[in-house]
């Protein structure tokens, strides 16, 4: 089969790989029909995630058709069209029993601090991912869901992570009616977070980024006020001015460890790897939120420490909520919202690349060329 393969930082290619096989009675093999590149994949692509091995196939956003099932699989049949949450989870450990699907304890031998994720290095379990023609799906009775007939494939693939994460981020913000909500980052995650903030009763939604095409999308897709942080000497001061010197009630951090905005932090973190990426967006969140306010962090950070302004967070009495998204927990409600047109994930798809062109796809998405907001990958073009 054909699969995307990591060759070292900034380098990937498509290779012929052996087909995945059933390794556990509850495994399924899925033929991928549509996949996507996530902002999280960029952290791997840039070599920031420890234990990213050469030969690894990335991809945790994918949908497909069940090709084969293990002997204990009851809920899926060969031929079912399924969407697969980016989390690999067992459904039965202490964490899964309590809905913390992204924190499953039974699927990732490499680390206890993070659950299992498809195609996301050995630090999340060493599973090859879905930017490929076929993929092994563990716990087939627990993760995958049959795609509803009415759902568009592009919405389905985005619901496996980016959209679910935006919606989850807004929940982490514990938004109350009338709240002023600031969303840092107008990528796929931030855009859906901004849409979701309104559903939870926000009175005002402001989105911060530096990419004009993304800010334009935040206005059209999420009815948000937008701020290009490069136009202000200090975006935190601007946020204070905008909120009558209170600060935002809620900030949703949808940027993560590769934030721009401080060249020094960027070089120290993502180039010299002296810290686990740059925490500038998280620090902006801490400084922009009002005292006693809440920050929902969905931007990704790895296991290497960051220079976070923890003192400000303490002195301001902040609540910081965060996690990898327990995707499947979001789905029933999100399906309604997509069906009603309240959430419109596929609005943000800008590019569709055949699997064979995935090196270019990564470069375009990583360098944010050509107005790229969300690139999809078509594996079975051949």
């Amino acid at each position, binding site marked *: 089969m054909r699969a995307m393969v990591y060759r070292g*930082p900034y380098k990937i290619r498509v290779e012929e790989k052996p087909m995945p096989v059933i390794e556990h009675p509850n495994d399924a093999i899925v033929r991928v029909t549509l996949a996507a590149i996530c902002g999280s994949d960029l952290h791997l692509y840039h070599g920031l995630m420890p234990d990213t*091995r050469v030969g690894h196939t990335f991809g945790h956003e994918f949908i497909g058709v069940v090709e084969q099932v293990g002997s204990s699989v009851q809920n899926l049949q060969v031929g079912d069209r399924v969407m697969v949450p980016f989390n690999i989870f067992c459904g039965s450990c202490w964490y899964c029993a309590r809905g*913390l699907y992204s924190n499953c304890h039974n699927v990732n*031998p490499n680390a206890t601090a993070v659950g299992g994720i498809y195609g996301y290095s050995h*630090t999340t379990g060493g599973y090859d991912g879905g930017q490929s023609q076929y993929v092994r799906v563990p716990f087939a009775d627990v993760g995958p869901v049959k795609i509803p007939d009415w759902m568009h494939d592009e919405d389905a693939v985005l619901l496996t992570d980016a959209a679910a994460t935006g919606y989850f981020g807004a*929940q982490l913000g514990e938004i109350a009616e009338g709240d002023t909500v600031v969303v840092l980052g107008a990528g796929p995650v931030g855009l859906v977070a901004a849409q979701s903030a309104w559903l939870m009763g926000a009175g005002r939604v402001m989105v911060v980024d530096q990419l004009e095409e993304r800010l334009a999308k935040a206005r059209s897709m999420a009815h948000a006020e937008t701020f290009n942080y490069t136009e202000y000497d200090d975006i935190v001061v601007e946020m204070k001015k905008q909120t009558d010197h209170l600060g935002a009630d809620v900030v949703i951090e949808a940027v993560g460890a590769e934030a721009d905005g401080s060249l020094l932090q960027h070089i120290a973190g993502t180039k010299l*790897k002296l810290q686990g990426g740059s925490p500038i967006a998280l620090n902006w969140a801490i400084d922009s939120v009002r005292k006693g306010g809440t920050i929902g962090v969905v931007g990704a950070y790895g296991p290497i420490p960051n220079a976070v302004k923890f003192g400000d967070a303490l002195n301001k009495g902040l609540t910081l909520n965060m996690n990898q998204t327990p995707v499947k927990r979001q789905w029933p409600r999100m399906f309604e919202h997509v069906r009603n047109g309240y959430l419109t994930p596929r609005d943000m798809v800008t590019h569709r690349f055949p699997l064979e062109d*995935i090196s270019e796809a990564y470069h375009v998405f990583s360098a944010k*060329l050509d107005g790229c907001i969300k690139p999809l990958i078509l594996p079975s073009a051949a």
Partner: protein
Amino acid sequence: MPDDKDIPSAYVKDKRTPTESREELRARIPGWGVDLDPADRPSNHRLHYAPDTTGAHWDFPERQPEKWPREHSIEHAFVTPVFGTAQPPKGLSGVIRKFSYARYGEARLGHWLLLILADRVDAWEEHLRSFATTRPDNPITETGVKAEYTHGGLASRKGRVDARHHLLDPLVVAGPWVAAAGGAVLGVRKLVRAVRR
């Protein structure tokens, strides 16, 4: 005494900035307020005990066969019942990885730094190995730089702060190659001199 209205909200007891009414918001934003009740949001409460809803039909999953001693965090009681089998450790990078897992817990910085080191060693080992195959690594095609021409590299970067660090990216990618080429040239020179002497 200044007029109270000039004093920003933060300094008085109530927010002065008016917000739109529910009706106005509903008219303007599709779906405004459908998730208004925090108790009715899908991830409320964080811990929600519902083991019968997950689809699992086991107390503890059957164990996947372990085909080699699977490296695992020493914070785990054992190798988890299910795990990924992609890219088993090999070569020098494999030795470093196995050592890091065996020696350090996740709380230790050394654990992660060794893994990052192993990643770099792995990339080098694999680049070298690739030269002995019919498909050597090609930094031009593998970095996808072709997209600079096909997808408007220059125009796309106008006025962006991150363009500054894009200048550094080629260095990160090409730097080691250039250094290696330089090293090779020096090495050959030394060798030639040694032979001549």
